[in-house]
């Protein structure tokens, strides 16, 4: 970790020194960039915002800024929210017993791992990258956890090791992308196969988990109201979402993530730590995949090499449906959570329907992803 953070700083001492004063300003511009549309970012970066200019625009433009926010920034998230409400309403009308708090809460219970996965994916997609390895890393995490528990390790160590392995894998992918300038999808595709391969090396059979701590986590229910219960996994997922929200919207790292997605060279010219952040997002995604893997282990109480095949699509779909642009630079972590809930709702409806086979889930998710991608293309084209 230290090697990564030090390297760009060490490699560019001159730039770090001269741009030291300017980087606060750049962070301010980054805030503007995340708030406004692409063009604003390009203007700020390309035209070179005058030193005093950014502060002044920030003050008297608040009313206009709010107007722009409502009209463009949250538009896609609002579409997702509307879709969620409409789907839930349709389900409530069609099926008896659908309209209940527990069905809504079960969306969180059954998809806690996917929420965490989508959070990590949001970071990567915001920078304009993609991480195809998440499903394999989840599978690898379940395998490592199951096999270590089987050989008698204690749960805290097992979880720690799983998290370290996931983060390291993500970090390595990030470093490969950074040092060798390889397209993210190829690097993460290779990582996907590699992680799957490690699963096979550990075992080709399913390993079940009988550890008391893991089974306790699987069985525990926390009451949140009259007759309403959630699992500890939901709390973990919500904590991850909260941390991601704070990091993305209230730290310089978060603003750099948005700035990179809006245009790598511009962000670099503003003196933002582009390369370090690019590596960081893959490490974050790896960490999130590992956490999701642990939650998935709580959920299934087993480790299996072929588990979570295609989960990367679910995560990408959740992020895209949640309103994050695949080209990067625009989107919200809370939107991704909404995206996960939409996917969960589709699954719930298919199971309520009863006659539809579960394979329809994949097909519906694929189609929904397609619709939202096309919607994105249309929206961005219109904005230009």
């Amino acid at each position, binding site marked *: 970790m230290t090697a990564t953070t030090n390297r760009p700083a060490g490699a560019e001492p001159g730039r770090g020194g001269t741009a030291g004063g300017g980087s606060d300003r750049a962070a301010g511009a980054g805030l503007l960039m995340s708030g406004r549309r692409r063009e604003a970012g390009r203007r700020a970066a390309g035209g070179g915002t005058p030193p005093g200019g950014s502060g002044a625009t920030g003050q008297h433009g608040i009313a206009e800024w709010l107007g722009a926010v409502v009209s463009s920034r949250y538009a896609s998230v609002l579409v997702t929210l509307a879709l969620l409400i409409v789907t839930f309403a349709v389900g409530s009308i069609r099926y008896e017993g659908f309209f209940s708090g527990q069905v809504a809460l079960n969306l969180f219970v059954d998809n806690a791992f996917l929420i965490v996965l989508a959070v990590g994916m949001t970071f990567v997609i915001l920078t304009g990258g993609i991480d195809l390895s998440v499903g394999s890393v989840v599978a690898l995490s379940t395998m490592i956890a199951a096999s270590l528990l089987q050989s008698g390790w204690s749960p805290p160590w097992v979880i720690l090791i799983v998290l370290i392995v996931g983060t390291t894998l993500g970090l390595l992918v990030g470093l490969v992308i950074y040092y060798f300038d*390889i397209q993210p999808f190829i690097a993460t595709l290779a990582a996907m196969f590699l992680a*799957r*391969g490690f699963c096979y090396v550990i075992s080709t059979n399913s390993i079940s988990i009988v550890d008391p701590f893991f089974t306790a986590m699987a069985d525990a229910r926390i009451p949140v109201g009259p007759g309403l219960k959630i699992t500890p996994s939901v709390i973990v997922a919500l904590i991850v979402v909260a941390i991601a929200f704070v990091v993305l919207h209230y730290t310089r790292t978060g603003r750099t993530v948005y700035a990179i997605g809006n245009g790598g060279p511009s962000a670099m010219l503003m003196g933002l730590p582009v390369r370090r952040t690019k590596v960081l997002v893959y490490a974050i995604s790896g960490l999130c995949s590992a956490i999701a893997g642990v939650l998935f282990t709580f959920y299934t109480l087993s480790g299996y090499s072929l588990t979570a095949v295609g989960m*990367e699509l679910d995560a990408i779909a959740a992020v895209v449906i949640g309103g994050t642009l695949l080209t990067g630079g625009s989107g919200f972590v809370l939107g991704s959570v909404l995206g996960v809930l939409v996917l969960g709702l589709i699954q719930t409806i298919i199971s309520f329907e009863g006659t539809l086979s579960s394979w329809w889930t994949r097909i519906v998710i694929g*189609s929904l992803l397609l619709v939202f991608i*096309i919607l994105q293309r249309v929206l961005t084209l219109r904005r230009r």
Partner: protein
Amino acid sequence: MIAARLRDVFRSRLIWPVIALVALLVTNVIKSPGFLSIRVQDGHLFGSLIDILRNGAPIVLVALGMTLVIATRGIDLSVGAVVAISGAFALSIVGDAPDPNDLGVVLGAAAASIVFAIVLGSWNGLLVSVFGIQPIIATLILMTAGRGIAMLITEGQILTVSSAPYKVIGGGYWFALPASIIIAGVMFALVAILTRKTALGMLIESVGINPEASRLAGVSARVIVWTVYTFSAVCAAIAGLMISSNVTAADANSAGLWIEMDAILAVVLGGTSLAGGRYSLTGTLIGAFVIQTLTTTVYSIGIAPEITLVFKALVVIAVCLLQSPVMNTRITKMRMRRRRTPAVAPTRATVS
């Protein structure tokens, strides 16, 4: 003179895959001296080499389609799903027919699968060329939704059908050679003639190098991109027929699993850059056989087959790193330095 010739050989992009192939074969010969022997039995050729040819045919086909897709700076992740769909579709038709052993039924089923694949491939092509979705995402949709479609066709079961004519596609013999390798060979020859004897190959490369510039130069990039994705799906479908015919079963979950990885690996081993542009069909052919030989070797020298995937992934990573722009500039610099040192600089008009 000989030294110059040798240097030319070593400069060639194909030298490394060929060396890898030879090394793998030598390993096998050391392990089992009879490895290279081919015997004739019942008028058919038998032997480990023939097995490699037969089992390698699906990879050759899928990699062939993948080469053209990658040459246009794309990628097709859906080939594995198409393999599963086409096998399931063809076998379900053959299985539902009154007489599964009827040649007409089998040919009809094969044709129907290929038509289905054309639909799936043009779907991918539509998403990439008309809607402008990144190839990785566009084909990812079919990669996962496709397994769902295959599941729907097989109704979640593993279809098993015994049909003699169908068995020929993947396990039979024509003119003493495995039918599958003849089919793959014919497809390969067709593509080679179509793209190398006409301007099509150059147009594909130009689209891969710079889609915008080639569009401005009058190349119908959209049609070309659309065509290569359709072609890739057709190749995958034929591979799917072979795989399902070889085991006389269609398994929606595991048929063609990770074949996209093998195909991508074959293409990059063959020296085609994942960044698009120049491609080498011969390289892909050699790459595909390197992979099949590798798989055979893993089994024959007694390494646990589970490790193959890790090994292949590491090879992909290594080859990608070697191809990366950073390494390229580094290697070029090294060559320049070496060329400057000798007193008599070797005269080379062209630098490949």
